[in-house]
């Protein structure tokens, strides 16, 4: 039963992606009927094959539309801002060559795989930090920090508001 | 479905289908696999026989793939756009040689290969190699020639690397593969140059378009380089002893047939594609390489202590005879004296003889190795006491290759000697010298392996292997006793396809 649910949800998501791929193909509406049929079959097959893999470690909570809306808000809001800041930061460091790097360790207290992944990728793309490793058991993050101010910082000191966002979106 | 009309493509598609499906059948059980292989082999052999019969009785057979009707070769506008199969007498002869080798190889492999995962795969590779050789022999399209060239290369190298329990097999396979791939890439580069210059890929169409420009000449050199390598002419023969020595015997016989097919491709390029620009320089090059091949290979065979490698050098030297014969024909192609045709016939007849005799020798060596557990001439001896049939077959093959009179090798070599004597007596003398060397080599091998006191207790050779060898030995005897029939009815049309057949070929493809 659970397997079936996994496969179905994967199939549906994959079908949605297929719709994106094959938009603007039909003479009427947006999608041609044969495209829809072929995409349905394809999504069924892919969902059947890859479904158990995708949901292997849980993550059902990601399906709620509220989280997706929040994700979009996050993407165009704080994330873009942080990225711009990161780039200017890199530019400044390229010009001045002033770095004081180190690898620090902190625990953002995230439990799920998706949450950790989300935070790790956010960290990598935002100012001065680069995820080096994630401890599977404890959830500790090892981060290469380009400007170390404190050898044993807290999560917020390194990456600002992102753990909170990660908890809200992907936990 | 008109079987006679579709026979050329069916002869290629059926073994391909058989090869694709063979591992599937093996999953259901080994008897099913063997049954399927038998079925496919029988069907393909009869189809190739049908094609050859049609070609020998009715002239060149042209088949256009994907057109509305097999003979619709030309698109509106008067040029071929699709892939064309054009089978002439030489192609059919080469196809017959490949079929013979494959059938004998499969019969031999039934008991020769150990029953394990590798046997199914090796049989599959054998089937695909067979299909590739047929595709190479029947095609009339330059790029298609390259594709099947690669099919045969990869299948052959897979077979060479069969013995993974030593490092020698993979080593030989790696070297062979590198050379085959480089040669194939040269051929592909030549095709690219020709395509960029003329916008055509069909052999006949290109033959009409070629004008002898610089690009054409570069292309000719590239094609020659690639194909001479695959043929195994000295100095680029060095993969051949490694590969022949290390492959399992049923693979070696396919490899030998593969060499003949590559030789066919070389002749096709030289005579049909570039026949209009007949250049004696190229002919002399082929003659020189042929002479070099037979001398160097037989000299190298003198000192070998490994039985397989010794026979392998013998096999390489036979390629020299074919190159010599056909090279003499190519040299005098423009003026066409009668001895050119004679040498050409000798060369082509020798292809047939060589496939039979060298195949017989390799199979006998395989039987010796399986029975005695080794191939080193220093350790072997006295096997003739137990392996009477194998010894007899080995002796027959050795005599045939060395050109001892009543056997088939003599007839073809006589024709080659005579043709080359009339071109230049030195060539003939060198060829006879090589023949004498070979006789010494084979007598030494025979004496070392089979004569003398009984030194070890060999296993008995299974009867299916003996049967396969017997078929080849019968061929050797028959071809030796009736050379005139074979030359008149089988070889002469094939030689004519090269000698005067260029215009016929072009007309058959173009329909006018």
């Amino acid at each position: 039963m659970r397997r079936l649910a996994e496969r179905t949800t994967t199939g549906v998501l994959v079908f949605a992606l297929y719709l994106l791929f094959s938009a603007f193909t039909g003479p009427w509406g947006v999608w041609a009927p044969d495209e829809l049929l072929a995409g349905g079959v394809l999504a069924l097959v892919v969902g059947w094959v890859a479904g158990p893999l995708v949901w292997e470690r849980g993550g059902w909570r990601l399906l709620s539309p509220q989280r997706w809306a929040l994700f979009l808000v996050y993407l165009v809001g704080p994330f873009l801002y942080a990225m711009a800041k990161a780039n200017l930061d890199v530019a400044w460091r390229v010009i001045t060559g002033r770095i004081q790097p180190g690898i620090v360790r902190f625990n953002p207290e995230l439990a799920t795989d998706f949450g950790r992944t989300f935070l790790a990728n956010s960290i990598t793309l935002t100012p001065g930090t680069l995820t080096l490793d994630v401890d599977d058991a404890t959830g500790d993050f090892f981060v290469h920090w380009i400007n170390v101010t404190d050898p044993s910082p807290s999560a917020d000191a390194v990456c600002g508001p992102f753990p909170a966002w990660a908890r809200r979106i992907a936990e | 479905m008109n079987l006679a009309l579709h026979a050329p493509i069916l002869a290629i598609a059926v073994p391909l289908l058989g090869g694709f499906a063979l591992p599937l059948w093996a999953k259901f059980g080994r008897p099913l696999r063997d049954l399927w292989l038998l079925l496919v082999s029988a069907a393909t052999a009869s189809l190739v026989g049908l094609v050859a019969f049609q070609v020998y009785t009715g002239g060149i057979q042209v088949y256009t793939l994907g057109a509305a009707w097999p003979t619709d070769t030309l698109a509106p506008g008067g040029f071929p756009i699709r892939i064309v199969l054009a089978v002439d007498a030489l192609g059919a002869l080469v196809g017959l040689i490949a079929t013979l080798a494959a059938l004998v190889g499969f019969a031999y492999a039934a008991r020769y290969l150990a029953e394990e995962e590798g046997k199914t795969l090796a049989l599959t590779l054998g089937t695909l190699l067979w299909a590739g050789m047929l595709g190479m022999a029947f095609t009339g399209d330059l790029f298609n020639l390259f594709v099947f060239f690669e099919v045969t290369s990869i299948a052959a190298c897979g077979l060479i690397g069969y013995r993974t329990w030593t490092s020698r097999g993979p080593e030989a396979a790696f070297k062979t593969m590198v050379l085959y791939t480089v040669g194939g890439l040269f051929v592909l580069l030549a095709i690219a140059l020709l395509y960029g210059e003329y916008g055509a890929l069909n052999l006949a169409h290109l033959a009409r378009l070629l004008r002898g420009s610089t690009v054409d000449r570069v292309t000719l050199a590239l094609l020659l380089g690639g194909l001479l390598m695959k043929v195994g002419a000295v100095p680029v023969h060095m993969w051949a002893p490694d590969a022949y020595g290390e492959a399992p015997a049923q693979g070696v016989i396919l490899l030998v047939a593969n060499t003949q097919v590559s030789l066919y491709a070389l002749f096709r390029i030289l005579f049909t594609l570039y026949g209009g620009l007949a250049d004696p320089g190229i002919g002399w090059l082929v003659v020189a390489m042929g002479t070099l091949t037979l001398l160097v290979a037989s000299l190298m065979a003198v000192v070998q202590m490994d039985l397989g490698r010794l026979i392998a050098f013998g096999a390489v030297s036979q390629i020299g005879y074919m190159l010599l014969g056909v090279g003499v024909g190519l040299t005098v192609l423009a003026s066409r004296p009668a001895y050119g045709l004679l040498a050409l016939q000798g060369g082509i007849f020798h292809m047939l003889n060589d496939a039979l005799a060298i195949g017989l020798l390799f199979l006998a060596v395989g039987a010796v190795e399986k029975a005695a557990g080794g191939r080193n001439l220093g350790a072997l001896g006295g096997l003739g006491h137990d392996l009477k049939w194998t010894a007899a077959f080995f002796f027959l093959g050795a005599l045939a290759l060395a050109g001892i009179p009543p056997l088939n090798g003599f007839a073809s070599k006589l024709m080659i000697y005579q043709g080359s004597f009339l071109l230049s007596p030195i060539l003939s003398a060198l060829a006879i010298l090589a023949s004498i060397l070979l006789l010494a080599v084979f007598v030494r091998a025979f004496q070392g392996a089979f004569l003398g006191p009984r030194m070890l207790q060999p296993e008995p050779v299974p009867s299916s292997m003996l049967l396969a060898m017997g078929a080849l030995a019968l061929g050797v005897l028959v071809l030796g006793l009736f050379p005139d029939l074979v030359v008149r009815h089988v070889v002469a049309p094939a030689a004519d396809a090269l000698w005067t057949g260029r215009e016929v070929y072009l007309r058959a493809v173009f329909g006018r």
Partner: protein
Amino acid sequence: MSVVVRTIARILVPVALLFGGYVILHGHLTPGGGFQGGAVAASAVALLLVAFGTSAVKGLKSPFAVLEDLGGVAFVVLGFLGIGYTFFFNVLAGSGGLFGAPVAPGPNPGFLNTGGTLPLMNWAVGFKVIGGLGAVVVLFALFGGGDDR
């Protein structure tokens, strides 16, 4: 690999499979075709191997080999479809049935239901390539009994 790579791989494997399928399916309309789509889908296998280690692909060798055999057989059989005319004749093109709708000459947005036997051949080659390349990667990974760290 770490949890980050594994999670992203879990997202990307179905995406790669779908995209491979898309490329195969639209081989006669957009760039791509059996081989390209098959290569994309086989990369999903490679991704699986690199992210999850040998244990994830251990059982895939035999199915891939069967898939490849079936693809090859299907391709030859599709060639045999046209044997009433010639081998490889495109019997379905323009016949009005499956994949048989005719195409108006000139630029058009592309319709899936065209191409005759071409889409079917695309699928045959696609399965063959998925099976073959996947089997190659798996064979390389399994050779010598790898140590999965």
